[in-house]
């Protein structure tokens, strides 16, 4: 591995220097975050519009969700966000091993999140609280409300898309674990770790909104 500062091997040919490369990557990442926010944005619009049309149904239907599981998932995801940011912090401080450990922890928390989500989903599937036409739950607390299937459509699409992001994030973190263990990422070059970190915090940030919107209010 070359330690020549003028052209280290991780510098791509079309950049002047590592700083330009790093800042370009970061700006690109933030442009990507913007598109992510607006992708979820469309679903937030659907949520707001239907909530304004069916306020009672939304209040009634969110009581069917399991607050404890939602709360547990929130805590898991915030913790994973912390371990992710600590992984970046550790590699900046040349603590490769600590960084690796933090990445593995992040991965495990992400896995836990999906596990809890799976338990939640399978319960919903059992009782017939399904999206759209497949909805069949007419329990006493909801039978008098109009169109609860729309609430569950939005719930499944939003949390499903979020879950998909968690799964993609897990793939990326797995790759980071591999790259860090091999020594490709180090205190001089950790751009991918920081970028994936930003992505992971976005996943956390979106959950921060989803949790109260679906479980609490």
């Amino acid at each position: 591995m070359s330690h020549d500062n003028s052209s280290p091997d991780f510098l791509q040919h079309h950049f002047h220097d590592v700083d330009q490369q790093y800042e370009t990557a970061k700006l690109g990442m933030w442009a990507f975050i913007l598109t992510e926010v607006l992708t979820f944005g469309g679903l937030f619009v659907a949520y707001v519009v239907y909530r304004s049309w069916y306020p009672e149904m939304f209040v009634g239907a969110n009581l069917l969700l399991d607050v404890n599981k939602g709360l547990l998932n929130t805590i898991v995801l915030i913790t994973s966000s912390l371990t992710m940011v600590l992984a970046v912090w550790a590699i900046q401080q040349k603590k490769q091993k600590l960084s690796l450990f933090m990445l593995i922890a992040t991965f495990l928390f992400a896995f836990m999140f999906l596990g809890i989500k799976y338990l939640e989903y399978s319960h919903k599937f059992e009782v017939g609280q399904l999206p759209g036409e497949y909805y069949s739950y007419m329990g006493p607390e909801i039978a008098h409300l109009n169109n609860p299937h729309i609430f569950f459509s939005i719930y499944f699409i939003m949390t499903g898309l979020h879950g998909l992001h968690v799964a993609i994030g897990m793939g990326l973190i797995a790759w980071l674990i591999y790259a860090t263990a091999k020594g490709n990422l180090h205190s001089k070059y950790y751009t991918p770790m920081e970028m994936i970190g930003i992505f992971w915090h976005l996943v956390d940030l979106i959950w921060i909104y989803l949790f109260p919107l679906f479980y609490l209010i």
Partner: protein
Amino acid sequence: MSEHHITPLKTYLVIAGALFCLTAITVWVSYFDFGSLNIIIAMGVATFKATLVALFFMHLLWDDKKNLTMFIMSLMFLGIFITITLLDTGFRGGVNPEVEYPINKRAAFYDSLPLTDTHGNPVDEHGTDSHEGDEDHH
């Protein structure tokens, strides 16, 4: 790369602690009913948490301000999307009232759905009556 800002460990731990506390608060508050304030409180707390994540975990506080601009732009466009859509969906029927609501407020497939208990299993006649009675009120 050595010149990048390195945040002290303590900052991260404090922020994470604040996030946990705010989560606890928002769950605790949700057990009380403040009417329409419920949404405002929940969204206010969520926005505060999101700001902490964005500024500290995502390093926007120390970053090039272009990145912060990009992020704020995304929220601004989302705000535009929501607000302008609500100008329609929230104000239908202002001139001709028959336009305001759908003709059938409940989708047709509910008519053939049996009532269920809390486990999703169908229950018998007794429930059906209360269902029909309720439907008239909505």
